[in-house]
């Protein structure tokens, strides 16, 4: 080893210095100085901006006055926490919330003035809607040639299905072929029970926005990025397409087996489920040893049925311990409860303990990836409709209080409706912490 190599202890020392949670607030942000305007609803557009906001971009979320983003009313089992849906909170961190009705001319002008002072616009309306309203890429670039405009949609901005067809996450799951290869062979296709078609496409959109920002440094020019969420899902289906191209056949559903790396898969064990993974010959040999040792040295082949019998009688912890001894890989199949209580995820800031100025303590999903010099962070969670109107319209656009009053009177700008999901939390008296939070800590 060369003398200047820090070696094993060197890496530990580096990692300890590079990633302490307490130091994050004092470190610079990767995307500081980038301003993003979001005119989007539900998940695809908002999640795109959430990714950028985690790394320091200033995101201004534009909602309709009163009700705002309809995602505010999507709540698990109808549950609202301090008047907010957990589903909305987890998608809209670090954003400034303003409410503008962009239908009247004053609203369009206000939106355009925001876009003039911004680097990025993200929308996820039906294709062509923004252009029809006079605030699409073609119009905004006249006022700001450097603008990067992410047009997120179900089927793209052009092509036979682009006009009028709406899309959600599961539209993309369905039409892409993703669902057809997910689930068990003798069962119907399985919809992923989370909004994978939105989040996958959102991360692809955020990545393209960063690439376009890189290009702008050289050219000074912005551009439009057209991303269909179904095409995003198509891009993720690995060998599905070369297989179809070569054999003319459909890839089949294979349940919990990874047919490329057999017998890797998810298996039932005595106290839950465990993932068993064998990526190469070394790991397959290790797994084989473990199975043989278990059944008194019998030979036989490395088939899933045998792995299933092996895991069925053991706890997940036992399988993990055996895997480490024998030289294959294994991991528990976990859910939100295990993640919430996992010291590893908390030490990494992946379960992020946020102290929000309005809502108090609320734990959220924290940034991935982890950057050593300019780490991502959660600074605050989502806010009521129009919560930052004065800050944005006053400080950024220089509107006077009188001008804002006039726009509010004309209903061009506005605040929250008196509804759960849109409005601020009820004021709490001193010494009366939120009950739900307390009960969560006990759980």
């Amino acid at each position, binding site marked *: 080893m060369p003398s200047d190599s820090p070696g094993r202890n060197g890496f530990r020392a580096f990692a300890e210095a590079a990633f302490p949670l307490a130091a994050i607030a004092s470190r610079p942000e990767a995307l500081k100085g980038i301003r993003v305007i979001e005119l989007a609803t539900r998940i695809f557009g908002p999640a795109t901006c959430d990714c950028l906001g985690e790394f320091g971009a200033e995101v201004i979320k534009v909602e309709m006055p009163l009700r705002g983003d309809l995602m505010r009313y999507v709540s698990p089992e109808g549950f609202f926490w301090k008047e907010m849906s957990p589903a909305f909170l987890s998608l809209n961190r670090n954003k400034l919330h303003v409410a503008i009705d962009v239908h009247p001319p004053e609203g369009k002008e206000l939106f355009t003035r925001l876009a003039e002072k911004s680097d990025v616009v993200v929308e996820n309306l039906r294709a062509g809607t923004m252009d029809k309203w006079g605030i699409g890429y073609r119009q905004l670039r006249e006022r700001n040639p450097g603008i990067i405009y992410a047009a997120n949609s179900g089927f793209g901005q052009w092509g036979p299905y682009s006009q009028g067809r709406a899309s*959600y996450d599961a539209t993309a799951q369905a039409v892409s072929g993703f669902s057809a290869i997910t689930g068990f062979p003798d069962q119907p296709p399985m919809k992923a029970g989370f909004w994978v078609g939105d989040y996958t496409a959102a991360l692809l959109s955020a990545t393209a926005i960063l690439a376009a920002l890189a290009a702008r440094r050289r*050219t000074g020019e912005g551009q439009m990025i057209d991303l269909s969420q179904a095409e995003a899902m198509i891009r993720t*289906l690995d060998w599905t397409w070369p297989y179809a191209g070569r054999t003319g056949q459909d890839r089949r559903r294979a349940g919990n087996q990874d047919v490329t790396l057999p017998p890797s898969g998810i298996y039932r064990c005595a106290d839950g489920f465990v993932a068993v993974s064998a990526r190469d010959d070394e790991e397959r040999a290790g797994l084989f040893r473990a199975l043989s040792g278990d059944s008194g040295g019998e030979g036989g082949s490395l088939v899933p049925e045998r792995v299933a019998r092996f895991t069925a009688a053991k706890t997940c912890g036992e399988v993990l311990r055996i895997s480490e001894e024998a030289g294959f890989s294994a991991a528990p199949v976990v859910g939100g409860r295990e993640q919430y209580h996992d010291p590893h995820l908390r030490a990494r800031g992946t379960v992020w303990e946020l102290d929000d100025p309005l809502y108090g303590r609320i734990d959220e999903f924290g940034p*991935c990836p982890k950057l050593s010099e300019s780490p991502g962070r959660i600074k605050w969670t989502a806010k009521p409709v129009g919560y930052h109107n004065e800050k944005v319209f006053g400080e950024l656009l220089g509107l006077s209080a009188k001008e804002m009053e006039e726009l509010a009177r004309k209903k061009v700008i506005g605040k929250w409706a008196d509804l759960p999901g849109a409005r601020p939390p009820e004021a709490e008296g001193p010494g009366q912490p939120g009950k739900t939070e307390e009960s969560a800590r006990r759980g």
Partner: protein
Amino acid sequence: MNGFDAWAKAATDPQRVGEKPEALSGLRVLEHCPGHFGGMVAASILGEFGAEGIKVEPPGGDPARGYAPMGISIAGTGLPFLSEARNRRFVTLSLEKEMGREVFRRLAMAADVIVTSESAERMEERGIGYAGLSRGNPGLIFLALSTYGSFGPHAGRPVKDSDILCQALSGAPYIVGEPEGEGPPQPHQAPTKLGNWHGWFVEGLCGAFGVLAALHFRWETGKGQFIDVSGPEGLMKFADYNITWMHAAGKARKRVGNFDPAVFPYTYIRCRDGYTFIAAYNDEAFESLMTIIGRPELSKDPRFSPPANRVRMENEQALLSILEEWSGNLTADEILRAVEDYTSKQSGPAAAVVTGRVNRPLETLADAHWRERGCFTRVNDSVYGDLLLAAPPWKMSGTPARVKSVCRLPGADNRDVYGEIGYSPEEIDSLIARGIL
């Protein structure tokens, strides 16, 4: 439409990408990810935007070339590898000997980005980790991909990162699949993996995103950095409100098959020619859908109104039966037409009735829409033959992403790449003879 769609097509047509510049040209990415698909994804995404990728394989080829579902292999390389080997050059290098590590260090001095799936700690031990390399190349962006990340209490767990590990720990399978019913559980009543390598894909995508964020920071400060991606943490975010709901209500998401705890209808329904997706969950859209199926009175039925009642599991089941009474006699296309006929006359929240057929891959391929948008690309490669690939998903007006090459044999670019960093042909011959390349 003001001709917007025609303008958008002309501005972003993938057939014309060759006329336009690339976003990341000049960015050098060195990829050292033996046996790891997520690392290939990270490098591919950067490569589609124009980065100059170099993939370092062990002499004889990357173990991932041997991944061959259905036993299909072309010139020694399986289909998964071929699906993510685009736009890069291929060199071989053994890092087992110090002489090989010295070659790697020289490659790293000429690189902007390193992508690796090897343990960051082990890389450091061998003198090719971030702390060592960044001393000579302070602008270096070093992306480390792993299951548990490079720090934290579980960072030392001895696993080889894989898709199934990423999926299991992400919490995704936990909330995908059928719940158990009465009696002994059936095999399919289990946490269910996503059919593709979605865990690995998202791990790589998070890595590419991190590299571009770090690149932005480097432009401002000149500083490179270490990027730590734990694969499960990428996909974990996609399970959205899991953590927030736990904190606020002490509740975790569960498996509910094709139902949903927050929105309904938002499910697959049986139709005459298979299954189709149907969603109409906000009140206005729900009313639209009940009108479309000829049951307008149901929008005020106490089982389905307000929305909090609609997402009770027994009511979701009742509503599914009602919807399938209607859809069972219709094809997915007929359902789409019925929805579009009605919603085209609505606006705002009432138009939010959404449908789309659950397609098998060949049906997706046959769809004229994707063909017109250049969503797939067919390449005839001199070594690997005729290959069908997913094209870059973005259409961009200024610096469009593109596929420039498919794959090369291991070491195919050794002479070019090692020549560029100063090795003479004789030195390269010597490295080959010693088994380093």
